[in-house]
């Protein structure tokens, strides 16, 4: 039976069918749903780890123990986990280990558009790249077989347009192989698993030799194949780009690569001998193109297609026409219009607790080093109350550095609860240890909201929503040694302001936990307030909190009751007391 599945659902299904028993991940768009879906299959262990490095170590441990394991993450997650990737390639694994990693060309929800295929080459780790959900399902199993055959981790690369697209998948009643009846004994082999220099030196040649063998094996893998067509034009492509190219060059001869590293050189040469011109259709970096050029094979690629952003059939067609590869298609006349269509930038939800916090921070003119999460939207106008955002966990170190750089401004770091547990603890230790005076605000909404409300160690629930130990950030920071710690609901803006001022004046390093549950996750809603048209002088001060239900009209401001969450923040900021709670 065919079933529509997203790429992420298919990855999870493939992992289940292939007998993966341990899965660990930290959420990150567009990868998050992989582990969520996997956790719902029977007989598997799945976890949200505090960060990607931990998740990869967990999967590596399971694979050392002979169990099939999976770790999944978004592209930048592999930056965090990369140290572990490199050692795991050296030690190799016993049970299959697959790392599913999702890139985000165009940065739909990311801070950069790094091309993680480069990690395959860098870490000397084989990489597969499925092009639709059916392949996503199958490639997980193929990756695990490859992993066990060559005793190496294998990366499966996804992109937003695979992870979040739905395509038909063959779905059956098949079940995974049963687990071993007796738990096996762990095979102790320090020479292999203890990467001290002497052992690592012995492992490195094994890694190089293994890569050569995998490249030879790639020649025989059915996921790399030639699709015969008109040999005047030979297209090489992989992943979703293959489908865009099929739309644009329906008659060309294709080389579709299911494995993008290492490459099957003989197959590529055979293809090159056969076709007149080779064109490589690949998003982001010229990863395949450079390898072909190193082989001395002439190919076109980045002279036709851009290195930035995401491809689409429209883009591939336009570039192909420009390069003279295909005739100009018949198309309706271009639409010329100067109609103003104001953009709709992402915004904090009506009722979001982060908004109250940023309102107070802005009113006090504080310099805010930020981090990544819903609260990053505090940087957007009209709030405009966040001044740096780099990567997860960066806020605290950057604030400490600014503090040591001795500027006039009051500086605070703001980060979310999930981000704090991901990578905020170490920089906080640094502030204390190195005699910093900066203030850190944990905007604690008890969820990993940005990526879809996943549980984390601070919510007291596991990925399956079972009760578990709760890591309380207040106890944690006190345990580290912070003495100046306050907890406050940012909706109490007077109290919030009082605490903020106190912390800013103090020379002690300090932490404020601004706690208000994510209203979307907690499904919290109250009756919307109304504007009294007699009292409203249309000053627009309430609009500065940037809450979308507040609409400025000719005479006065109005609250759109359909959008409003009834949180009451606007009621508090209106100087005329014209917004009336109902």
């Amino acid at each position: 039976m065919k079933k529509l599945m997203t790429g992420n659902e298919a990855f999870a299904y493939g992992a289940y069918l292939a007998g993966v028993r341990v899965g660990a991940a930290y959420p990150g768009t567009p990868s998050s749903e992989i582990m969520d879906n996997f956790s719902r299959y029977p007989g598997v262990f799945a976890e949200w780890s505090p960060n990607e490095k931990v998740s990869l170590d967990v999967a590596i441990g399971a694979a050392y123990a002979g169990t099939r394991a999976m770790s999944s993450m978004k592209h930048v997650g592999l930056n965090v986990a990369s140290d572990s990737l490199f050692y795991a390639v050296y030690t190799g694994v016993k049970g299959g280990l697959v790392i599913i990693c999702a890139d985000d060309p165009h940065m739909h929800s990311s801070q950069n558009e790094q091309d993680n295929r480069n990690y395959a080459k860098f870490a000397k780790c084989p990489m597969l790249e499925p092009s639709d959900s059916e392949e996503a399902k199958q490639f997980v199993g193929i990756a695990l077989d490859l992993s066990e055959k060559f005793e190496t981790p294998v990366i499966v690369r996804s992109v937003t347009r695979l992870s979040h697209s739905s395509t038909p998948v063959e779905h059956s009643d098949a079940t995974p192989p049963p687990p071993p009846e007796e738990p096996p004994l762990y095979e102790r082999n320090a020479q292999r698993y203890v990467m001290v220099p002497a052992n690592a030196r012995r492992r490195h040649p094994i890694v190089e030799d293994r890569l050569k063998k995998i490249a030879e094996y790639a020649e025989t893998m059915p996921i790399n194949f030639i699709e015969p067509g008109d040999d005047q034009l030979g297209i090489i492509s992989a992943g979703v780009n293959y489908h865009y190219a099929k739309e644009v060059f329906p008659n060309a001869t294709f080389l579709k690569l299911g494995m993008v590293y290492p490459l099957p050189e003989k197959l590529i040469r055979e293809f090159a001998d056969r076709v007149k011109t080779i064109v490589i259709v690949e998003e982001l970096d010229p990863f395949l193109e450079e390898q072909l050029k190193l082989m001395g094979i002439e190919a076109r690629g980045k002279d036709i297609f851009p290195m930035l952003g995401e491809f689409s059939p429209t883009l591939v067609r336009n570039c192909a026409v420009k390069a003279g590869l295909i005739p100009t298609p018949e198309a309706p006349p271009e639409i010329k219009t100067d109609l103003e269509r104001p953009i709709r930038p992402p915004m904090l939800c009506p009722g979001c607790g982060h908004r109250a916090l940023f309102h107070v921070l802005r009113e006090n003119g504080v310099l805010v080093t930020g981090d990544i999460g819903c609260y990053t939207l505090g940087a957007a106008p009209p709030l405009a109350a966040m001044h740096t955002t780099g990567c997860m966990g960066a806020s605290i170190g950057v604030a400490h550095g600014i503090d040591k750089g001795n500027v006039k401004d009051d500086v605070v770091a703001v980060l979310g609860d999930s981000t704090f547990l991901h990578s905020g603890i170490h920089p906080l230790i640094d502030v204390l240890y190195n005699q910093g005076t900066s203030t850190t605000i944990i905007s604690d909404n008890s969820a990993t909201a940005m990526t879809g409300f996943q549980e984390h160690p601070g919510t007291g629930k596991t990925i399956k929503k079972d009760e578990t130990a709760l890591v309380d950030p207040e106890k944690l920071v006190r345990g580290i040694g912070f003495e100046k710690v306050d907890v406050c609901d940012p909706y109490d803006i007077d109290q919030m302001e009082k605490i903020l001022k106190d912390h800013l004046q103090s020379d002690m390093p300090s932490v404020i936990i601004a706690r208000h549950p994510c209203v979307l996750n907690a499904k919290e809603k109250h009756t919307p307030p109304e504007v009294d048209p007699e009292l409203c002088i249309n000053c627009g001060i309430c609009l500065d909190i940037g809450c979308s239900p507040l609409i400025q009209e000719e005479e006065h401001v109005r609250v759109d009751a359909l959008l409003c969450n009834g949180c009451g923040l606007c009621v508090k900021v209106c100087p005329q007391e014209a917004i009336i709670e109902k």
Partner: protein
Amino acid sequence: MNNLDFLMAGVGGQGTILASNILAEVGLQLGYDVKKAEVHGMAQRGGEVDSHVRWGSKVYSPLVEENNVDYLVGFEMLEAARFPQYLKEGAVSLVNDYRINPPLVNLGKAQYPSKKEIESLLLSRADKVIWVEGTGIAKELGNPAMVGVVMLGALSNLVGGDKEAWLEVIGQMVPPKFVDLNKEAFLEGRKVTG
């Protein structure tokens, strides 16, 4: 088998994604090869959400191509107005007669285009722009979040397929508590184009 390309455009929280899931599933039930792509942007609510659905005998790309879309379904007026270049000549646009102001408009710093301007922009490609009181109808039935199903009802008359097939998929895909209400919303939507 005709290839049909759909583009659905709305604002986060309007249920664009559920509607496109239903549309994709209906295509599969009707025997098409189906692909669907969407981006849920960075914000959980309030941002632009667009979803591509393709029905065909063989579909490669999950993304629709400019100049090729048969049906543009706008869940919000301005969102529909962003995509005229995707329409093929003779396409149909179904637009929910509903406006959600972008922040700049709320702040009085930008203008929301008029209904007439939006209509004439879409008509530079489309044969027809059908306005649907989607949110109005859904609200009357008790839940504005059903606007997607109302829009699907209006769309279903145009693309064909047995009414029962649509209703069955809706029954499978909306929360069990709301099945009857959603079916009703779908049938109300059908009346708009029926």
